[in-house]
């Protein structure tokens, strides 16, 4: 058949001897270029820079800010948002959104507490059941989204209301007091324990959050499943055509998010001592976690960003809140300034990215 080649496209004779080396260009290696290149390759470093800058500013504004205890307090204050942020991260990476994260967390903490107290189930079993139920709630979201093809916003808006009111109804609005938990089911408060290395109290919850972020970061970056999560968010149809089982991935992602929320619910018991159905995480957890995710540079349109960025995003908000509290502004002014600072943080982030590209 090679004889036809000549016939069909005689000009291809020119191909003989075509260059076979991969294109390369020389590049200057100035320091600026190197920094730029590093920033370009590690986009999660950008929120880190913003974070460090804000820590320095607040340290200058308030004497009490730059202390180990204050830092550990900030970490423990963002522990729950950080864990919910892990859940939100994987969901947002698939171009979804989960408004029910806070509600699942609170409901799970109530379920664990009520199972241990009202139904007398041993606490460790109650915890396991609580985690399983959280996963099931997340999977239910995922089912509605991937099988019935409903928009994630509506599904989780609906289940947010459903889980939250189920939580109030189930708990009869009753708070289980801290002393009772400590006496009868101390394992519920596990994450509220702390180590105290140099006189600085650090909650187990903080280590848990960091561990979850690290594991999730590994999974997203270094496993096939993680790549598939990105692919689904990037272009769901393309991923499907390329052989990703998109609807299975979506269900798994929401179920895993539910599990993270249930873990957050368990951590809430440790952090607050008591089991309270009215915890405001139920109302605000979604906005807080989405804020962390977006400040961390994850695109709400899916497929772009990293969980490390989310972690820095949560930290930035935590630092701003604590810093403004210590500087002592009036609450309304604090809200005002937090609003302004969040915009400012993201503006600086964008600016660094632009300069570095």
């Amino acid at each position, binding site marked *: 058949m090679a004889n036809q080649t000549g016939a069909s496209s005689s000009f*291809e004779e020119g191909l003989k001897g075509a260059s076979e080396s*991969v294109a390369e260009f020389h590049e200057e290696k100035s320091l600026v270029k190197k920094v730029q290149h590093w920033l370009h390759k590690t986009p999660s470093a950008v929120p880190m820079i913003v974070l460090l800058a804000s820590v320095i500013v607040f340290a200058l504004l308030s004497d009490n800010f730059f202390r180990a205890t204050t830092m550990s307090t900030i970490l423990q204050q963002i522990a729950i948002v950080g864990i919910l942020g892990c859940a939100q991260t994987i969901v947002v990476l698939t171009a979804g959104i989960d408004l029910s994260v806070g509600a699942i967390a609170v409901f799970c903490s109530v379920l664990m507490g009520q199972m241990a107290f009202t139904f007398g189930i041993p606490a460790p079993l109650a915890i396991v059941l609580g985690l399983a139920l959280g996963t099931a709630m997340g999977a239910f979201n995922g089912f509605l989204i991937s099988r019935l093809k409903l928009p994630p916003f509506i599904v989780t808006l609906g289940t947010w209301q459903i889980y939250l009111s189920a939580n109030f109804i189930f708990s009869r609005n009753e708070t289980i007091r801290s002393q009772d938990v400590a006496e009868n089911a101390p394992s519920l408060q596990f994450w509220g324990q702390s180590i105290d290395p140099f006189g600085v109290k650090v909650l187990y919850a903080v280590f848990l959050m960091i561990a979850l972020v690290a594991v999730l970061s590994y999974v997203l970056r270094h496993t096939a499943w993680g790549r598939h999560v990105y692919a689904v968010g990037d272009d769901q149809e*393309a991923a499907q055509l390329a052989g990703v089982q998109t609807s299975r991935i979506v269900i798994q992602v929401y179920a895993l998010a539910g599990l993270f929320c249930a873990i957050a619910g368990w951590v809430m018991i440790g952090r607050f001592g008591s089991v309270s159905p009215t915890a405001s995480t139920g109302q605000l957890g979604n906005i807080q976690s989405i804020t962390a995710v977006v400040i961390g540079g994850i695109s709400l349109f899916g497929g772009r960003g990293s969980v490390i960025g989310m972690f820095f995003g949560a930290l930035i908000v935590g630092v701003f809140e604590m810093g403004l509290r210590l500087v002592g502004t009036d609450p309304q002014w604090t809200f005002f300034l937090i609003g302004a600072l969040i915009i400012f943080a993201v503006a600086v982030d964008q600016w660094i990215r632009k300069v570095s590209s």
Partner: protein
Amino acid sequence: MTEPILKARNLVKRYGRVTALDHCDFDLFPGEILAVIGDNGAGKSSLIKALSGAVQPNEGEITLEGRTVQFASPLEARAHGIECVYQTLAMSPALSIADNMFMGRELRKPGVMGSLFRQLDRPRMEAFARQKLNELGLMTIQNINQAVETLSGGQRQGVAVARAAAFGSKVVVLDEPTAALGVKESRRVLDLIRDVRSRGVPIILISHNMPHVFEVADRIHIHRLGKRLCVINPKEHTMSDAVAYMTGARVPEGVAA
């Protein structure tokens, strides 16, 4: 003649008011290169989408190796060994070349890192991707970790073609694989197509490039207005004939006008 490996009868596909396939028939025989040609919008892509499960036809029947099949998704078709390069390429724009090439078939590290921690073997995947791209003559890709969205049109198409060729098993479908490719790269793709056939895998090739089609095809399926108009042998007809048939300038023998 042997039985067709992939056969379709009376396929109909409508999108709202638009009819893309209008009682279309199709046959692919083992080990052959079947070209599908036709005007823009004749329904070629719709045909192979229906064959590969990417869309569900409204009517009609598809048989693979004699058994009636109904693919609900491209995944099912792929499980039956049908590998496609779609015209839209089906790439995840923000992911890297290697990630895209191995999507759904990732390589894992040897040892515990791979089996227990399920870690991807990035270096191996990248080396493989680089090699496949070099084979296609895409020497201009400077950074194998580039996101696919930052590739040039031709480079992107090259990645998609390399993926299908490397992994296809029973039937390989290529929808205009050389549209964005340069002279050298197109030539390599044609060589590749012959390679694949020599492994015994039949190929469906959609193309608007008549010299290419007449060079490699064993049979040519001419598509017109959502139907198979006729099938011709490239040795018995000229390119001019084929063009006349597909544009409606002439009606082939044995077909009612």
